[in-house]
């Protein structure tokens, strides 16, 4: 246990370093001491620097922390619930639902005449469309979870939802003019930097509720490691637990997708990374570890996406996969076996 507290402190230390690194990078180079001054509202030599730090880079770093930790935790929840190492935050079709919502708004407008074309450019429209999409998928999945006894069947239903919605998105794309298509593709790249402090606040509330729900699931998640029958024999209420876990995941992954777009790989890869580092399967240890590691990895990915020293920024969704995929491949080759 003493060992584990050390891990925790090291994790927090790295998180702070990663946050500082993330804030210090960007298209405008700002000296480190000026950054620290800006954060603590001290006198800064250039007012624009303070503005960039406080209104742009800091909310972006916070978003990265919320997005990374939330997705990583959703991934862990799904891997344990479905007892499947390949499960991630989006296995239930949440991101597909969000994509469909956004695709309908962006591309459907041209197809169906559109209500007010100008409205569709608004960020909030996209957030609402994407939340609605996720929410409808969530309702369908929760409904199914009450009817279906077998958790694996639920997994397959989630996958079916995903292919169904992506097929509809394909049809929409096929008939869309290039301008709308590009707009949709830009959304699907994901973005951390578009959020104002108010939006970060809203995202934080969803994130917090997801985290609190997950904490209440910790004991049952541990019993689920033994399989559903054993869990039941230990007094676990399987249906209630399944509901809570799916609900927590939806809150986390749904709100993140709504604000930052679909972000790949973090949710799948981080729990596996953490299992390699931390010698424990206890969710009491894994949940905080995954939250920390997810936040750190996301900050690093975002820092790389800035391409330090240049004015270019790469799409964050591509970076997470470019980093995530080799990591998982490396793990598989080294360990030969991926366990949940």
């Amino acid at each position, binding site marked *: 246990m003493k060992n584990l507290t050390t891990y925790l402190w090291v994790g927090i230390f790295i998180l702070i370093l990663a946050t500082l690194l993330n804030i210090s990078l960007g298209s405008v180079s700002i000296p480190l001491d000026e950054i620290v001054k800006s954060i603590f509202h001290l006198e800064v030599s250039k007012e624009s620097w303070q503005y960039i730090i406080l209104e742009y880079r800091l909310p972006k770093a916070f978003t990265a922390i919320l997005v990374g930790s939330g997705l990583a935790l959703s991934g862990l929840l799904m891997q344990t619930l479905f007892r499947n190492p390949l499960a991630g935050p989006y296995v239930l079709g949440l991101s597909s639902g969000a994509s469909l919502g956004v695709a309908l708004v962006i591309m459907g407008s041209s197809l169906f005449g559109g209500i007010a074309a100008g409205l569709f450019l608004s960020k909030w429209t996209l957030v609402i469309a994407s939340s609605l999409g996720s929410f409808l998928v969530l309702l369908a999945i929760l409904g199914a979870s009450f009817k279906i006894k077998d958790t694996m069947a639920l997994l397959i239903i989630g996958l079916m939802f995903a292919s169904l919605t992506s097929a509809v998105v394909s049809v929409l794309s096929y008939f869309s003019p290039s301008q709308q298509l590009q707009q949709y593709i830009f959304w699907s790249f994901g973005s951390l930097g578009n959020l104002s402090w108010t939006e970060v606040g809203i995202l934080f509330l969803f994130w917090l509720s997801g985290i609190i729900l997950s904490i209440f699931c910790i004991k049952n998640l541990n019993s689920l*490691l033994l399989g559903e*029958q054993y869990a039941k024999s230990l007094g676990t209420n399987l249906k209630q637990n399944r509901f809570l876990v799916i609900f927590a995941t939806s809150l986390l992954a749904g709100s993140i997708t709504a604000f930052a777009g679909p972000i790949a790989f973090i949710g799948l890869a981080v729990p596996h990374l953490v299992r390699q580092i931390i010698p424990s399967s206890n969710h009491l240890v894994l949940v905080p570890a995954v939250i920390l590691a997810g936040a750190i990895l996301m900050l690093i990915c975002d820092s790389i996406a800035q391409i330090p020293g240049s004015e270019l920024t790469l799409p964050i969704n591509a970076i997470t996969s470019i980093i995530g995929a080799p990591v998982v491949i490396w793990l598989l080759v080294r360990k030969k076996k991926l366990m949940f």
Partner: protein
Amino acid sequence: MVVSKKKEVDVLDMKNKEAKTILSTQHLSIGYEDKVVAQNIELNIKKGELLAVIGVNGSGKSTLLKTIIKELTPIAGNVFLEEVAIENISAKEISEKISIVLTETHFSKNLRVEELVSLGRQPYSNWLGILTSKDKVAVQNALNLIAVQDLAHKKCSDLSDGQLQKVMLARALAQNTPLIMLDEPTTHLDLYHKAFVLKMLKKLSKTTQKAIVFATHEIDLALQLCDKIILVNNGEVIQQTPENLIKEKHLENLFPSDLIQFDSISKSFKIKS
């Protein structure tokens, strides 16, 4: 109805002379909506007893065990757990009375042995599942009883089938229930380890005074070791001592008689020549 909670008795210290009934059934009929599997079952399982449930494939062994652990509802009659009808007992309370060991090994192999055995303490731990020092003692006791202390820090993926079986048994012991039920605990094991596991169950039932019930196809070994046999055959369930079961010739027509035959002198089945 008050079920005493968290009454922890040191597993080694339970040498109660009086044989108390842990589980009994009255006029129990088991089966599914469209099919009755067996009727009028009268069982009486006492503490310190080792019982084997035997019967051919599809005879209803699992149906019986599932009904006892409240996974299936009886068609008629009742199951009593320490004299309380099981329909009045919550899943949480049952978890303090009955622990199980299954044949399937689809649990997370990432678990370390000690973690896995600790999960047996869940019925007693708080909402976060944090172990108290009492829980830790129970876990160590369970590991000691099965003699797997040296595996404590190994990952389950590094264990053999036989070791896994022992570890799962240790987990059930850590749950500290008066009744342990095992589903075919010897399935993947060679003959030596089959005998080893069954002898260990025998020893445990005596030292811990727990009632241990296991479903098995090892009829020969069960006849040699068990205090009682529960025979499930053709919609009938009989609970008897091995001697009486043989004397009353219940085993003669257990299997179709064209290939094997029960030999009451050697207490085993012989292939017909």
